[in-house]
């Protein structure tokens, strides 16, 4: 694989691919880190790829294809969103499957380290504001610069999709169903339509001592209500046991101040909490989808089987969030 990467990145192969290692991923999606050496230069890079697959790798969750993901990084980077730089889009002649190579930025993305390591203390103080600011930029990306195949989840279709997903997966959870019913009955009026990252949370943010370096993991991006991203970032499941409401590291006021600085708009807390409830429901559907992937044999990995047992986290969060709102 190192040889093919080298050939793809340096015609004539006058260099070397070093320290190639797999970082994570399921059966369909791989992320690799490596260093590209040319003369005395060393360039730290990331390869994201779907070996031997084509198009979307997860129809249930509407994940983007690799080429769309790369196009999205370029479009958002151009408007000031902190993202890695796309370095090379894989072609058939690279014989590496579908995917792309991007810059490997410095920083830490592991939530537990980010939340507890003293070296990130100053970054934690700034991070909620910076997240609000970055989200503001994401939500202001002109829609006509985005890949045409980006899914549109704006309007009632988002919750209809959840219902059909629950029905497909045997609809065994009364708590997910009551959460969905509440979300249907209480949709905020006047939702706008913007680019939504879809997975903007602690764990997908690259952070160094000075704060946010890059926003990662764009495969769930779509068009929809922008406040969804703000609620998602504050969902309990993505606070990793810490108390602070924004990703476990920050406060609502700072998040909203950063968002207002970028957009001139300050969403109401009711809306943030609505989308937190949606995030809990969404987490439940992710757990059900992963379980189904395991059971069907599509991705019979230990990780998929284990995530299927995290459904009860989504249930408790929904019940807590809706405690004062249900009859």
């Amino acid at each position, binding site marked *: 694989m190192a040889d093919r990467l080298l050939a793809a990145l340096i015609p004539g192969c006058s260099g070397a691919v070093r320290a190639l*290692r*797999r*970082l*994570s991923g399921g059966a369909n999606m791989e992320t690799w880190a490596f260093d590209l050496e040319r003369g005395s230069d060393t360039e730290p890079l990331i390869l994201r790829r779907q070996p031997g697959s084509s198009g979307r790798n997860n129809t249930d969750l509407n994940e983007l294809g690799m080429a769309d993901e790369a196009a999205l990084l370029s479009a958002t980077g151009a408007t000031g969103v902190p993202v890695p730089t796309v370095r090379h889009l894989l072609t058939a002649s690279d014989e590496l499957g579908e995917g792309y190579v991007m810059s490997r930025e410095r920083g830490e993305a592991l939530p537990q380290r980010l939340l507890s390591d003293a070296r990130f203390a100053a970054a934690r103080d700034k991070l909620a504001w910076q997240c609000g600011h970055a989200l503001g930029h994401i939500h202001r990306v002109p829609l006509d610069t985005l890949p045409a195949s980006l899914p549109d989840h704006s309007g009632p279709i988002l919750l209809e999709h959840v*219902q059909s997903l*629950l029905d497909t997966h*045997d*609809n*065994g*959870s*009364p*708590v*997910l*169903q*009551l959460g969905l*019913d509440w979300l249907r009955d209480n949709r905020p009026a006047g939702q706008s339509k913007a680019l939504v990252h879809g997975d903007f949370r602690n764990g997908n943010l690259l952070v160094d001592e000075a704060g946010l370096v890059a926003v990662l993991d764009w495969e769930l991006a779509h068009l929809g209500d922008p406040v969804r991203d703000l609620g998602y970032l504050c969902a*309990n499941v993505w*606070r990793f*046991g*810490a108390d602070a409401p924004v990703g476990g590291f920050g406060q609502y006021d700072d998040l909203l101040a950063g968002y207002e600085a970028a957009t001139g708009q300050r969403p109401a807390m009711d809306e943030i909490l609505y989308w937190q409830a949606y995030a809990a429901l969404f987490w439940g559907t992710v757990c059900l989808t992963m379980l189904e992937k395991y059971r069907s044999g599509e991705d019979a990995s*230990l*990780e998929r*089987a*284990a995530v299927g*047992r*995290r*459904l*009860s*986290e989504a*249930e*408790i*969060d929904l*019940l*807590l969030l809706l*405690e004062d709102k*249900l*009859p």
Partner: protein
Amino acid sequence: MSGTESEELLAAVRAFLKSEVLGELDGFKAYQLRVAVNALGIVKRELALGDAVVALDREMAATLQIDNGAEPLPRIIAQRLKARSLALDERLLSYLRHRAQLVLAIDNPRYSGLQQSLQRWGDLMNMVD
């Protein structure tokens, strides 16, 4: 069952993986092994608490006068909520809350939502007894 109990086998396998194997691995493989050890922990807790979930469902089925046979009660309740043919009253909510607490105590007792729910809705153990 005679000989080694299931709980003992589980404890022995977990201890072996944690103390003998984990140190030999790094990166993605080490991460996966931690997931595996955690999964065995879920099975261990289910052996201890699973009967309480069954008892809770049986009691609620009787209260709602539902003869669910082999079909899981939560599935029937989900269908009726979807059809809006079952009222979401305090009794039903209380069952759903306590069931969610109990299942979470099996799946992931360290999850912060469980601690929050125990503070708000009372002690799980009172409910189990």
